């Protein structure tokens, strides 16, 4: 028994090591912020369209009972948004989803020029110049993309650009959301 006590530090060290190994494996991101909105209805908000852009504005009712919808939060001043733009355009065309957007803290003329240059894949775009709707959505930065199910519940929040490995994870979440329908 007394001999066993000498093994105790080793056991403790092994436990700490195992915990660290668990923490480092499996693609866990310690900076990831869990979203408070998952499985909750779309927050209350109503946004006007961007001046000079044909897409109508976006409000809560536009996301209820409309089938699987992606809500992309973007801004013309955001580099990664430019990178994910072709991917979102392709998703809207090839996948059976609606694509709408919140234009976050962006000047209307800058946003209009950006959409003119890259194309406008969005069915609706709400202009959130003050960033207040962004706060209702719990947005921490752009880009961010939410998956909304047919009942108007938020099923997934994806912070960061939907490209590369992010696209793979986003596609998984999208497929999951679709099979849950």
């Amino acid at each position, binding site marked *: 028994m007394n001999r066993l006590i000498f093994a105790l530090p080793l056991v403790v060290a092994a436990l700490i090591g195992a915990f660290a190994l668990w923490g480092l494996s499996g693609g866990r991101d310690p900076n990831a*912020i869990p979203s*408070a909105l998952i499985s909750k209805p779309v*927050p209350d908000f109503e946004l006007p369209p961007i001046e000079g852009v044909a897409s109508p504005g976006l409000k809560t009712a536009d996301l209820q009972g409309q089938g699987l919808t992606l809500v992309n939060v973007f801004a013309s001043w955001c580099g990664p948004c430019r990178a994910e733009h072709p991917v979102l355009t392709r998703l809207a065309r090839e996948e059976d989803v609606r694509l709408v957007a919140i234009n976050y*803290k962006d000047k209307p003329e800058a946003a209009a020029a950006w959409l003119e240059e890259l194309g406008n894949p969005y069915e609706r775009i709400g202009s959130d110049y003050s960033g*207040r709707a962004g*706060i209702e959505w*719990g*947005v921490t930065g752009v880009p961010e993309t939410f998956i909304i199910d047919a009942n108007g519940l938020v099923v997934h929040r994806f912070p960061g650009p939907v490209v590369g490995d992010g696209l793979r994870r986003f596609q998984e979440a999208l497929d999951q959301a679709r099979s849950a329908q």
Partner: protein
Amino acid sequence: MKRLLLILCLLASPLMAVEPDEVLDDPVLEERARAISADVRCVVCQNEPIDSSNAGVARDLRMIIRERLVAGDTDQEVFDFLVLRYGDYVLFNPPWKPSTYALWLGPFVILFGGFACVVVALMRRRTPVAVPLSAEDEARLDAMREGKK
């Protein structure tokens, strides 16, 4: 000139994230707003309270906290408003609920566990083990005593 600059530097207050246009006229409300924002984590620069963060979202949240206070919300209502949107994550003081029991109780378990170990170790050391002599040893001892006389 150099001396003047030095004096000016010393006089300058530390740089604050809270901008003048955010500050409320009512000092009591402003005080409460400052206290709340010191306890709310910035969601962009994650280890900073929004009170000292220069991030855009942090500024927006500071403004919203002040708006809510002016509208007559209690401190708790303001925290609830933020938690509803950003989750418990934004609180520097995590709430007491099943998923945080380990967080709140863990340190005390370790502290009292360690304390118990120390007590046990000390008690073992203090009580000398008195083993009565066997009859044989007693006899030898007696013989030694006899021999000395």
